[in-house]
């Protein structure tokens, strides 16, 4: 056997949470690349067992500090299906409004401070802000407005507490939401400027053949209701999730990898997949902007996911503004229900992609079992496939290892991995063995 050198290069920064990357080389040939996840598996599914179903939205919101609304939305939709609850159109619109606030906050942060620095060879949002102060300041303001919406509708911005099974604990007053309209009018214009800005970034020439997967609704851009659509398999009822997708344990990660069945292949979820599949369902200003900047779909360049995020921020501002302008409190804040035994499932679109939940509850309304499949777990194998392609492409040309490591980090960051939904920490380990010939 050849001796193996293990080398560590700097920590991957600017991702949510912490993970690791191991690259094994033989000479200039790639043997393997693995995205490692060190954190003990999330215990939330086990924590939910035996708890009253009413606790589920608040507990699942704690899984992630960036996308608590997504966890709440998938859980309440799944539980409502189990209980046979049909929510009112007013509740449904308010839930989309809440989701818009989360997409805005999450996407704007990633675009401006986590991802954009990579296109200008700077190491941090701080350095980027020194070069583009107006653009970054505009980004902070866009983020702030998303936060204000979460605060107004969710009860508070951190772990919103107003969401419950059947609806909300309290409907906001009209004046509480009307106050936000001027900010959203400014935000819609500013979001378009931000999207134009990122569309002009210098993108690496790197394309992959993706199977895009997202929630699908006949009339709406995917957010919090619908079946699932795949760019290769077409429409998949959410009830058949297990026939088409499977989670697998891999030795190098404590997060499960999701694969497509039957071929066990990776697939792509997230903003790029959504825009690829649903560009025509974007709100008009976002659609016009996609035309203006020449964003053609399907886009197979992961670095351009930042443009998809920009278009979704425009969409979220426009949809939120429409809901805010039309809002009149009407009907009950929540639909009553009686506990009954049953199972329920739902997929909604977290900022980072499809988030699937399923639950079994007993006749007393207690959770018997819970399953939560976050988007970063679903993208994990896709990230590895992209890294493999990148390394195959770059390794034949002599290149400092540090530069190669940076290129890998940048590719991982295009996914905006919310590793803390399922991980912790990212360092890169190089394991090298010399050629034996």
């Amino acid at each position: 056997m050849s001796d193996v050198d293990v080398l560590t290069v700097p920590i991957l920064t600017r991702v949510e949470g912490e993970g690791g990357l191991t690259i094994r080389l033989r000479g200039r040939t790639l043997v393997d690349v693995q995205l490692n996840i060190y954190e003990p598996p999330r215990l939330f599914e086990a924590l939910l067992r035996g708890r009253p179903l009413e606790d589920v939205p608040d507990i699942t919101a704690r899984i992630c500090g960036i996308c608590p609304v997504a966890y709440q939305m998938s859980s309440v939709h799944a539980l409502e299906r189990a209980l046979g609850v049909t929510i009112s159109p007013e509740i449904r619109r308010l839930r989309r409004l809440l989701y818009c606030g989360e997409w805005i906050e999450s996407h704007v942060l990633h675009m401006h401070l986590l991802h954009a620095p990579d296109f200008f060879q700077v190491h941090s949002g701080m350095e980027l802000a020194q070069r583009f102060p107006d653009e970054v300041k505009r980004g902070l303001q866009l983020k702030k407005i998303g936060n204000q919406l979460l605060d107004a509708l969710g009860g508070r911005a951190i772990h919103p507490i107003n969401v419950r099974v059947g609806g909300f604990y309290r409907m906001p007053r009209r004046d509480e939401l009307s106050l936000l309209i001027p900010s959203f009018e400014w935000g819609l214009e500013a979001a378009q400027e931000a999207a134009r800005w990122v569309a002009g970034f210098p993108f690496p020439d790197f394309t992959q053949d993706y199977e895009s997967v997202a929630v699908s609704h006949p009339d709406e851009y995917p957010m919090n209701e619908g079946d699932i659509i795949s760019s290769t398999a077409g429409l998949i009822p959410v009830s058949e999730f297990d026939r088409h997708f499977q989670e697998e344990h891999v030795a190098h990660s404590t997060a499960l990898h999701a694969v497509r069945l039957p071929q066990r292949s990776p697939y792509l979820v997230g903003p790029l997949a959504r825009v690829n599949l649903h560009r025509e369902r974007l709100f008009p200003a976002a659609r016009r902007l996609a035309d203006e900047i020449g964003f053609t779909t399907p886009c197979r360049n992961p670095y351009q996911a930042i443009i998809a995020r920009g278009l979704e921020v425009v969409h979220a501002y426009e949809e939120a503004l429409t809901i805010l302008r039309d809002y009149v409190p009407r009907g009950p804040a929540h639909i009553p229900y009686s506990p009954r035994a049953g199972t329920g499932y739902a997929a909604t679109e977290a900022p980072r992609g499809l988030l699937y939940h399923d639950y079994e509850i007993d006749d007393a309304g207690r959770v018997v079992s819970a399953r939560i499949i976050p988007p970063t777990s679903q993208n994990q194998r896709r990230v590895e496939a992209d890294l493999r392609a990148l390394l195959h492409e770059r390794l034949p040309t002599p290149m400092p290892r540090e530069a190669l490591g940076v290129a890998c980090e940048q590719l991982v960051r295009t996914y905006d991995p919310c590793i803390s939904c399922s991980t912790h920490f990212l360092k890169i380990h190089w394991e090298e063995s010399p050629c034996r010939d």
Partner: protein
Amino acid sequence: MSRLIVGLGSPHGDDRAGWGVIDELQRRGVSADIARLARHPADLWNWCDPSTDLVICDACQGTGPVGTTRRWQWPDEPMTERIRQGTHDLPLAEVLALGRLLQSCPPTVVLWTIEGAAFFPETDLSPMVRAAVDRVADELCRNPVHA
């Protein structure tokens, strides 16, 4: 000048320390507009401006025995790498520096840290950290301005 006390944290054991201070302050009658929970340092940009009298409370590791509390004055005392490094999207020091550059955060900030021991998901504060949370809350109530 508006006052803002922000507790940074997560629901993971002693990482709740910052939240614990906020909960304790609210229990003692401090308004939720003044004492706020945050999950990420970047949340500060949503609530601050250059004139905000900002105090941050957070868990940390590497400052001493479990339960050690320490008051820092940023930027006069640079934070160690162990404060808010790693588990979040952007480190606290970077958030504050960028906020100051873009006039979204005050030029000086008081930071209270509490040394934690265990950070397991969905567990409670350890007893030593719980006691430290009360001491920091005492300090903040005793000397409310620039505590």
